[in-house]
Structures are given as structure tokens and as C-alpha cells.
């Protein structure tokens, strides 16, 4: 595959001069009729799409306060303008969050405000035309819904919400995006985004057991559909086969083994990811999540622990209770859901598992905060736990940990460039350019601190970075799962559990 041209890294993030239209032609592949229809959307663009799209917008204005308020109150101050990784990487002014929002706001004004109805030109309002719809499709699929802009907005206006609404409207008129809608069809039919069948999953788990036993001499179990287990583990399905995801999954198993906690994955709900959020369709999001509730009931578990996946953790932490709660059938001693990092840190803090930090002494580790974890969720008991819990896990299993520049971590972290349903090959140019702020910050600590490992807790981040960092001359072995570091350091047979 041809390498995408990138600027040499300098370790500094610079705000570029604008280049109008630079990425106007970046276009995610459209969904095929069967992808749309599987989710209950029209297969192809419907005949009276203009009218229906505006009707849908009206519906959303009446049912989603955030969208309604955000359409009105943006003052275009520009606080967000230089905060988006896609703008910084592509220079296209429509990738400034405010300009991206204006694409839909100018249509909102035309149909829903007094000024726009009667003085469209003066009010900067415009009809929903074919060209405008094209702009929507292209630029609302150049937003990874990472919410960085919303941190800086004086009103908290969240472009993620706006892009979700735009995609929801487009789906409703039969203009869906292939990557998201095809995958959602798979998870609803097969239980995971990859379309892995039950027997393939069983084989994979068996392989893990053999592999770990061969390497360590300890029979660590990776159970599936085990009724009566204490813990139902929901990993992103990439954890079953992608690298470095699998190394993290192997780590989860070792932690459960050492803690002496019985656990299982479910073949019915073998996917933590939930792209229903990306397309802004709460009904689909609920359907995907509901499988997890059903699996937990069916298997009779006491608690649900989830693996390393960013947007899915946002859905789980922030939305599950509303969408598929209450969880009164689970043990109230535990938080639902519990993140694997919370689970592991608790064991470490209680001395329930034995750690040999020196196992990671060849690594100098930094941590990439995944956008949805950082700005869409929490962990532990204190605000900011989503930053501290995974760091505390890393520091407990590694001797060498350093931070990247503070303007690029924690709540102002940069998205990997592949989130929000953009992790698809036809958008590779965008993904490479969108990763440039993170690549710069990483380059800086590689040069100054000798960092050779960037750990993270998101399946999309891992897949994205292993693919795009080589374009910046950084090897894919830079990318690690947090539980891969745990896996290296946990001493098997070192303690007898909880």
C-alpha cells in the first residue's frame, strides 16, 4: 500500500493557515441498500428526501435539548476553531468544529428561525440542496465525535452531538455510511462487529488457553457461555483477534485467574463496541446494548466487567443505565458496568494479585487517553478517575512511565484520528492527517524521554495507530494494550486470589 505523504514530525503542534476545500472530496463509502434496511432505514435515498430530512430535523429539535440549544446559541467565537485534530491535520476550514456545525445550522436557520425564513441571505441561511447534503455527508464523516471542541466551548456545544444528529437525519432518508451500518447489521445478527460465529470464537479461546499454558505452564481458562460465572466479561471483539488487542485480552484472563474469580464471555453478546452511538440512533444503540443485558440474565452472572474500548465505555458508563437498566438483577456491591482497569486496580491495591514490575523494564511507557473515555465517561469514585485509574494500573506494573505534553492528555487529549465510525480504508488519508497532533506529542517524548511504548484502552485507537503511525516513521510495536503490560507483569500462581 502506498504511503501517505506526511510532514516530518517536529514534536510541536502548530495551527495551520486555512486551505478551503482541502478535504471536500474525502468521502466515506455509502451504505448499500441491505446495510441500511437491516437497521430499518430506507435502502436508498428516498424521493422526497428534502422534505423528510427537514421533518426529521424538526423531530430531533423537539426531542433532543442539546441539539436544539446548540443550534441557537453558538456565537461563533472560534474557541473551538483550532482544537480539532482533523482541522490541524488537514487545514480544511470546514473541519473547524464551528464551521462543521454551521453546515447544518445554516439549514436549521432556513427552516426553523424567523430570520432564516424571511431573510435567508442576511441570516446566512440556505436550503437543503443536493450540494448541501453532499457537504453534510462528507464533513460529518470527518468528525470522530471526540468532544475535544466541547471542552473549550464557552457553552459546552458538542460537535459530537451535532454530527450524530446529522448522521441520524441522513440515515432516515436512506443516505447511510457503509462502515457503520454494515457493522451494526453484523452485531445485531451475529453478536459481534466482526461477524465471528460461535464456533470460531470457541476455537479462538481454546487457542488462547493452549498458548498461555505453553508459555507459562499455567492452565489459565478463557471460558465461554459458562452459566453461573460471577463475572460476564464483554470485550470489544477486536480483542479476540487483532494485535495488540489480543495481548490485552490474554491479560484479562490472567487477572481473573490470579484473582480466583470465575468469569465468562458470552457468544450471544461477544461485542462491547456499539456503533449505534456513532450514527446517533438511540434505538439501534439500545438494541445493540440490550444483548448484553440479555446475556447477563441468561448466564446468571453477578456483575458485568468490560474490556478496553473507548466509545463503548462511554456508552456503557453513561448510557447503559438509561438504555438497558436498571441492573437490579446484579450484585449491588459492584458498579455496573465495571471497567477492567477498575477491576485490576482494585485487586492490585488489595494485594490480591502479585506483580513483577521488572517484567516491563525494557519499556518506557506513555499513555494515550482515548477521547471517549476521557471526555465521555468516568472511572473509580472521583471526577478524573478515567485518567488516574488506567495510569495507576500502568504505574503498578511498569517502572518507567512518562507523560506526553499536558496540552495533549487527560481531558484535552487528541483523538487517535480513527474514532466515530471513520476507521475505514477509504478514509485513510483523513485518518493519517488526523493522527498528526498525537504523532507530534508522541514524537516529542520519544526524542526527549526515550518512550518506546504508547499504552491505551481503546480497540479503535489500537487499530488506528498500528495502521497510521508507520506513515510517520513510528513502528506499530509502539502500540500496546494496558492489560498487555499487566499480562507481562502478573505473576501466575503468585497469590491465591481475592
Amino acid at each position: 500500500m502506498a504511503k501517505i505523504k506526511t510532514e516530518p514530525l517536529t514534536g510541536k503542534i502548530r495551527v495551520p493557515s486555512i486551505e478551503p476545500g482541502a478535504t471536500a472530496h474525502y468521502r466515506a463509502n455509502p451504505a448499500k441498500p441491505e446495510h441500511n434496511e437491516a437497521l430499518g432505514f430506507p435502502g436508498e435515498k428516498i424521493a422526497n428526501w428534502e422534505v423528510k430530512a427537514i421533518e426529521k430535523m424538526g423531530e430531533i429539535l423537539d426531542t433532543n435539548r442539546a441539539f436544539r440549544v446548540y443550534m441557537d446559541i453558538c456565537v461563533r467565537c472560534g474557541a473551538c476553531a483550532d482544537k480539532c485534530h482533523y482541522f490541524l491535520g488537514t487545514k480544511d476550514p470546514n473541519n473547524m468544529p464551528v464551521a462543521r456545525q454551521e453546515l447544518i445550522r445554516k439549514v436549521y436557520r432556513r427552516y426553523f428561525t424567523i430570520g432564516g425564513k424571511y431573510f435567508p441571505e442576511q441570516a446566512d441561511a440556505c436550503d437543503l440542496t443536493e450540494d448541501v447534503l453532499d457537504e453534510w455527508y462528507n464533513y460529518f464523516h470527518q468528525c470522530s465525535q471526540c468532544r475535544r471542541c466541547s471542552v473549550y466551548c464557552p457553552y459546552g456545544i458538542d460537535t459530537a452531538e451535532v454530527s450524530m444528529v446529522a448522521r441520524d437525519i441522513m440515515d432516515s432518508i436512506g443516505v447511510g455510511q457503509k462502515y457503520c451500518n454494515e457493522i451494526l447489521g453484523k452485531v445485531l445478527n451475529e453478536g459481534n462487529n466482526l461477524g465471528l460465529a460461535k464456533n470460531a470464537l470457541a476455537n479462538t479461546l481454546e487457542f488462547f488457553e493452549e498458548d498461555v499454558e505453553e508459555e507459562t505452564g499455567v492452565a489459565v481458562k478463557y471460558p465461554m457461555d459458562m452459566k453461573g460465572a460471577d463475572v460476564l466479561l464483554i470485550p470489544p471483539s477486536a480483542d479476540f483477534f487483532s494485535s495488540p488487542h489480543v495481548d490485552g485480552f490474554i491479560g484479562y484472563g490472567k487477572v481473573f485467574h490470579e484473582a480466583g474469580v470465575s468469569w465468562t464471555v458470552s457468544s450471544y453478546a461477544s461485542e462491547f463496541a456499539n456503533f449505534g452511538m456513532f450514527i446517533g440512533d438511540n434505538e439501534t444503540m439500545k438494541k445493540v446494548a440490550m444483548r448484553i443485558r440479555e446475556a447477563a440474565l441468561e448466564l446468571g452472572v453477578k456483575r458485568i466487567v468490560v474490556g478496553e474500548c473507548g466509545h463503548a465505555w462511554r456508552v456503557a458508563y453513561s448510557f447503559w443505565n438509561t438504555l438497558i437498566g436498571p441492573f437490579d438483577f446484579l450484585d449491588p456491591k459492584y458498579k455496573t458496568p465495571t471497567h477492567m482497569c477498575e477491576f485490576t486496580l482494585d485487586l492490585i491495591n488489595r494485594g490480591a494479585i502479585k506483580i513483577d514490575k521488572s517484567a516491563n523494564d525494557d519499556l518506557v511507557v506513555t499513555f494515550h487517553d482515548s477521547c471517549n473515555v476521557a471526555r465521555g465517561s468516568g472511572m473509580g469514585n472521583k471526577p478524573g478517575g478515567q485518567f488516574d485509574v488506567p495510569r495507576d494500573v500502568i504505574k503498578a506494573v511498569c517502572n518507567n512511565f512518562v507523560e506526553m505534553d499536558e496540552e495533549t492528555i487527560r481531558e484535552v487529549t487528541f483523538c487517535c484520528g480513527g474514532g466515530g465510525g471513520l476507521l475505514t480504508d477509504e478514509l485513510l488519508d483523513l485518518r493519517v492527517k488526523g493522527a498528526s497532533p498525537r504523532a507530534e506529542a508522541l514524537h516529542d517524548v520519544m526524542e526527549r524521554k526515550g518512550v518506546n511504548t504508547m499504552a491505551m484502552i481503546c480497540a479503535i485507537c489500537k487499530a488506528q495507530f498500528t495502521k497510521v503511525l508507520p506513515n510517520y516513521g513510528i513502528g506499530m510495536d509502539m502500540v500496546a494494550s494496558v492489560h498487555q503490560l499487566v499480562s507481562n507483569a502478573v505473576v501466575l500462581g503468585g497469590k491465591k486470589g481475592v
Partner: protein
Amino acid sequence: MTLFSVLFILLCYSLTFLSVGLFIYRIHGYANTPVPLKIPTMPAPRTEGGVVLRMAGEVLLFTSLFRANKWTWIGGYIFHVCLAVVLFRHLRYFLTPVPGLVSLMALAGIVAGIGLVVSAVYLFVRRLAVDRTAYFSTLSDYFALALTGLIGLTGLFMKFVVRTDVTSAKAFVMGLVTFHPVPVPPDPTLVVHLLLVLLLMVYLPMSKLLHVGGIFFSPTRNQIDDSREKRHVNEVEA
């Protein structure tokens, strides 16, 4: 009373009524729109008191804007503080006797009036000067700044150039407030000043200026981070 006075007084009442009515209507619309999910921008406060503090920081100090861009913050902050002081100082036209604090702020009011105009010009030029802001600024952005700036200018004009008769200006305002209107003072600057204010008042609830009320309804800023502990249900439908 002259025909002009009658018409002007009618205009004052009808536009004020329209402005307040529209404002209430718009805010009522926000309040009655459901919030389907928990979407605070994290990390978010875990208590109601924490949310009050977060919101107070945004409204009184513009904390997020400060973090985003110091140049925009300084202009925007001065603009809003001056506007608040000027509005407060104008209470002297609405209250008899004038409260002590309002009387004490004579100098502050003048400084704020000048600050308002200067910062409006600064913000206007800022939009034109930076390639990013020039790209996304719309006519309404320039209009709002120009309108507010002109209101400030006409105010300063009556203070420093052709002084208006403050006593008759107050008598006119008090007449309106007590529903015993008296004729408009014969000062064209004052009439223009008041017309621009009425225009701004009507423009506010149908424009981005609604951010003054809208910010309180922003779910990313007013929600508590407690989704695991407390099941969020759509409060309007529930």
C-alpha cells in the same frame, strides 16, 4: 402629546412586550425539550453543588473560553463585564430614589461605557483579522457587535458631546415604567439610542444572543456525573 411621542411610546411598549414574550417562549421551548441521555463533558462534577460551581465559572469567568484562547477571552470578558456594569448603572433611570450603589458607580459606568465600545471594535476587528474567524463569521456576528457598539457610542455621545437632559430622560423612562407615559425628550441622539436598544432587545431572542439564557440549558455543562449510581430518565417525558 405629539403624534411622534405617541407612536414612539407605543413602539417602546410593543417591542418590549415582543422581546420579553419571545424570550420566554424560546426558553420555555428549551426547558420542555427532553434530554434523552447523560452527556456531560467529562470530567464533570459528581454533585449538584459542583454543577452550580461549574456553571458559575462559565457564566462569571468564562472558564472554558479562557482555556481555549486568551485573546478572545480578554476581549469577550471585557465586553461582557462592561455591558453588565453599564446595564446596572442604567438602573438610575428606572428606580427612584436611586440606590446608593448605583449612584456610587458614576465613574465605573463611564469607564464601562468606553470599555464596551472599545471591546466591541476589538472583537469586530478580530473577526476580520484572523483567517479562521474570517472564514466562519457571518453577517449576524458583525451586526450584533455593530449594534451594541452603536448603542454604546450614542450613550457616550450624550455624555461627552451633546449632553442630554438626564432629568427629562429619566422622567420619560419612569413614565413608561409606571404606565403614565410622558412626551419623548426632544433629543435626537436619545431617540436613536432608545431605538437601537429596542432593536437589540427584539433581536436577542431570535438570534445567537440567546446564549444569555441558553447556556443554562446546555446538557454538557449542567449535568451531574452520576450515571452509574442513578438511572437517568428523560425528565420531561417522565
